[in-house]
């Protein structure tokens, strides 16, 4: 139809999609947020009005085309509106991590020379004011929650709702300008700038165009048949590309509803109340959820426990097959149906996953047991592989071809190739425009033909055509005797144990591999309680001999499993220690998306690594820690180092 082609041609920006949604889905709910214990909702038509009012208000404040607008807050409709309002006036929204400290925020604000910051509350305002002398370009701060801010100097500080009021009042004056700017938005104009958390060095600003965002959203929505009927829960950091694609890109393309939880702690309850149909969570979330289910089942009565164990066994056996539509004997099917009534149904309901049609996990490898647990319950959980530079999607698992150890086939419109060094490269309409103010890095990452290096090493499975990722390409190294060293591969195997929160494996250029282990306080604490082990602090629990013994069992089990893989058998862990503190993003040891920053850990704990290799049995160490408010303190501990038994391997035998 002529009509539809004209329409799709005009849909070349998020504000254009908003206008379409306001017309086409005007009465459908676009946003919900739980506030004062009640789900408040806005239809697409109402959301369009709110966004327009804010955009007009920003014009009144003198926003220029091409300005950068920082957005700092938890997932709330106000911030999604702020992003679209910024786009409407030709500015570029830059969402940031709200838990970043003042210096981190200042770096990003300074790097993009943001003139406006739209923030959540006093906490964020304080952080910015603390650094305001270093931010000469920042002119206006707009906050949503006025609490505690009444007495601040309001020359450059504004309340969000006041800016909207000003905008509404100035409708006649500024609307022509707003319409002029809206009409100018093009397919290759910048849609959003997202700073990558960066496992090394300073964060880089990834510039994504409207084309990147809309093409990726369109393709991925078609891949999973997403419609305006979907409900999603927006709870992942707004600074992360995934949230932008799910809660803005796909939501605007499809016209579905974005639900915002009341706050981070109420998220599980809110999830249950909303019952999303399309859902995304990092592996860690599923791990935590599964751990809490298992902990609670340990405390359940005998009959309940038996029912749970029995039907979970049935589920593990036939659940995934039923989900993938493979043939299953009638008796088993009946048993699964009963299990659904007694266990799976109620359990999914408690977890808030009853209505899931498509669920994704990405960002890290997920434990096979965890993955199978959810799939066996009949939840269509899949994996995808992506990055900010690709506007999320590189590969995805199609329905019916889901496995724990692959990341699927190339997403629609994406070309993937493996270069000689084993690194994965891709090219797609989602490939980012550039790193902001960083042409060298852009050139390093993206070649002239638009191929982008992922930095990950992987290979395609010949039989299925699915991609498997081994590790970060730069982390894959050689050990002293030339055997392959892939730390992430081993760390993931360790982390699949609920008792192990985090692991860092060392061994590049060494004779053997060693590891730092972080225990999971929830899981191990609960275990300690059940076994009458008293402890006063994290540090004490971590150093407990019985905890060490338990972790040693896990390490040795992992060694056995690593030994089976000929290529990676050199990565068995010979010696390990349990860290006396949790690795923390505030101390720079993890990124804000909780990825291990190897270089920093190696530097900071150089003494511990030395001890792992010099054969000592104990090591005294002092560590600087940063508290949430930015103050610093020191903790000291004497850590035990243990040897783990390893399976002799061919390479080793040959070497001897």
């Amino acid at each position, binding site marked *: 139809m002529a009509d539809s082609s004209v329409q799709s041609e005009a849909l070349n920006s998020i504000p254009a999609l908003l206008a379409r949604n306001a017309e086409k889905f005007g009465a459908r709910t676009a946003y919900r947020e739980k506030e*004062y*214990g009640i789900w408040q909702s806005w239809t697409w038509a109402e959301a369009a009005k709110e966004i327009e009012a804010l955009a007009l208000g920003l014009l009144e404040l003198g926003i220029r085309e091409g300005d950068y607008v920082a957005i700092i807050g938890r997932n709330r409709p106000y911030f999604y509106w702020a992003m679209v309002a910024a786009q409407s006036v030709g500015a570029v929204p830059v969402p940031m991590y709200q838990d970043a400290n003042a210096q981190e925020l200042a770096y990003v604000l300074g790097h993009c020379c943001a003139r406006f910051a739209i923030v959540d509350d006093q906490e964020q305002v304080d952080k910015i004011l603390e650094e305001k002398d270093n931010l000469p370009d920042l002119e206006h701060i707009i906050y949503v929650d006025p609490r505690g801010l009444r007495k601040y100097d309001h020359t450059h500080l504004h309340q969000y709702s006041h800016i909207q009021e000003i905008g509404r009042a100035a409708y006649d004056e500024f609307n022509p300008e707003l319409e002029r700017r809206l009409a100018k938005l093009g397919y290759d104009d910048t849609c959003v700038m997202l700073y990558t958390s960066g496992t090394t060095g300073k964060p880089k600003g990834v510039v994504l165009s409207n084309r990147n965002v809309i093409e990726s959203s369109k393709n991925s929505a078609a891949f999973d048949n997403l419609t305006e009927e979907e409900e999603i829960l927006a709870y992942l950091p707004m600074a992360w590309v995934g949230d932008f694609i799910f809660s803005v890109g796909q939501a605007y393309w499809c016209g579905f509803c974005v639900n915002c939880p009341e706050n981070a702690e109420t998220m599980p*309850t809110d999830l249950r109340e909303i019952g999303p149909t399309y859902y995304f969570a990092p592996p860690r979330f599923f791990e935590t959820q599964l751990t809490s289910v298992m902990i609670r089942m340990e405390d359940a009565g005998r009959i309940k426990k038996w029912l749970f164990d029995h039907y979970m066994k049935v589920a593990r056996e036939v659940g995934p097959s039923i989900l993938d539509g493979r043939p299953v004997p009638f008796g088993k099917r009946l048993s699964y149906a009963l299990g659904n009534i007694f266990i799976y149904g109620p359990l999914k309901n408690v977890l808030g996953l009853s209505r899931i049609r498509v669920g994704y996990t990405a960002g890290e490898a997920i434990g096979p047991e965890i993955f199978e647990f959810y799939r066996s319950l009949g939840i269509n959980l899949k994996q995808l592989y992506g990055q900010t530079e690709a506007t999320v999607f590189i590969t995805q698992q199609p329905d019916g071809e889901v496995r724990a150890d692959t990341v699927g086939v190339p997403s629609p419109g994406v070309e993937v190739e493996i270069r000689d060094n084993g690194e994965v490269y891709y090219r797609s309409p989602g490939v980012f425009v550039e790193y902001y103010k960083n042409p060298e890095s852009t050139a390093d990452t993206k070649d002239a033909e638009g191929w982008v290096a992922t930095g990950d090493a992987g290979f395609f499975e010949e039989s299925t055509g699915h991609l498997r990722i081994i590790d970060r390409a730069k982390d894959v190294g050689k050990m002293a005797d030339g055997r392959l060293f892939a730390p992430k591969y081993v760390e993931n195997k360790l982390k699949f144990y609920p008792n192990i929160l985090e692991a860092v494996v060392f061994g590049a250029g060494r004779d053997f591999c060693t590891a730092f282990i972080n225990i999971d306080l929830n899981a191990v604490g609960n275990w300690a309680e059940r076994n009458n082990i008293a402890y006063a602090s994290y540090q004490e629990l971590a150093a407990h001999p019985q905890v060490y013994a338990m972790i040693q069992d896990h390490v040795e089990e992992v060694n056995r499993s690593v030994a089976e893989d000929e290529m990676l058998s050199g990565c068995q862990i010979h010696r390990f220690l349990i860290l006396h503190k949790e690795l923390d993003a505030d101390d720079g040891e993890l990124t804000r998306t909780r990825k291990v920053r190897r270089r920093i850990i190696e530097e900071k704990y150089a003494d511990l690594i030395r001890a792992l290799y010099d054969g000592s049995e104990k090591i005294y160490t002092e560590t600087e820690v940063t508290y949430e408010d930015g103050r610093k303190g020191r903790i000291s501990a004497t850590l035990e180092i243990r040897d783990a038994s390893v399976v002799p391997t061919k390479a080793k035998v040959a070497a001897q």
Partner: protein
Amino acid sequence: MSSLTHKQEIPEGGYRTPDGRIIGGVLMDLKHITLRFGGVVAIKDISFDIREGEIRAIIGPNGAGKSSMLNVISGFYVPQEGEIWFRGQKRPPLKPYQVARQGVARTFQNIALFKGMTTLDNIMTGRVTKMKSNMLEQAIWWGKAEREESEHREKVEEIIDFLEIQAIRKTPVGRLPYGLQKRVELGRALAAEPDLLLLDEPMAGMNVEEKEDMSRFILDVNDEYGTTIALIEHDMGVVMDLSDRVVVMDYGKKIGDGTPDEVRNNQAVIDAYLGVVHE
């Protein structure tokens, strides 16, 4: 709740705090209070005032009579001698519930919540002085009672939001950790929309983090709602940081009164706390 106005001139009897807040005139004036239990004199001829918008601390060693003083203010004890002036009027001997209706709310040293009820319901009980419908109407939950409940619920939800306890809204308080129970108790007192809020050892038994949270909430209550606060507290660091003026008691007598700095340098106070050698 009294809204905060930016009056630049300092009102009669008021003063300006070092951090720039303006404190108003006298809200409550206690004159020559003496409280006896039989032969024991718990409070001996104590006078001090509490001014509008200030945070006023009452400190002293154990058994100094601090809690008795708070109970006098809340109307639980009626002093044998002395006068209490509230908002410029002499207060006759009243029952505690009558005092509560005048706009005085309190929390307790030992948490006094309804353990089996949810956070929401507990805070709702703080609204009782504001409810107009009678028992029959409430029992059949019809007409006025129904309307009223949603109005009160709105107020309660505002407090839940303010104290950031959304996640425990429907949790029975008996299951909550101590620090959160204290916060719920503060919520219940706030639900009465008091002009004068009495806090009896709000930080007792808390860890450092919980104390920091509670301090922030106390400051926020004072700042956001303009509520006058009188508190008893043992943690000197907290008291000195939070309060505008401090009354120091020892053995039922007032031995000091003034800003935290004045009190800190007062020899009688130092002696009371550190002890002196009695010859």
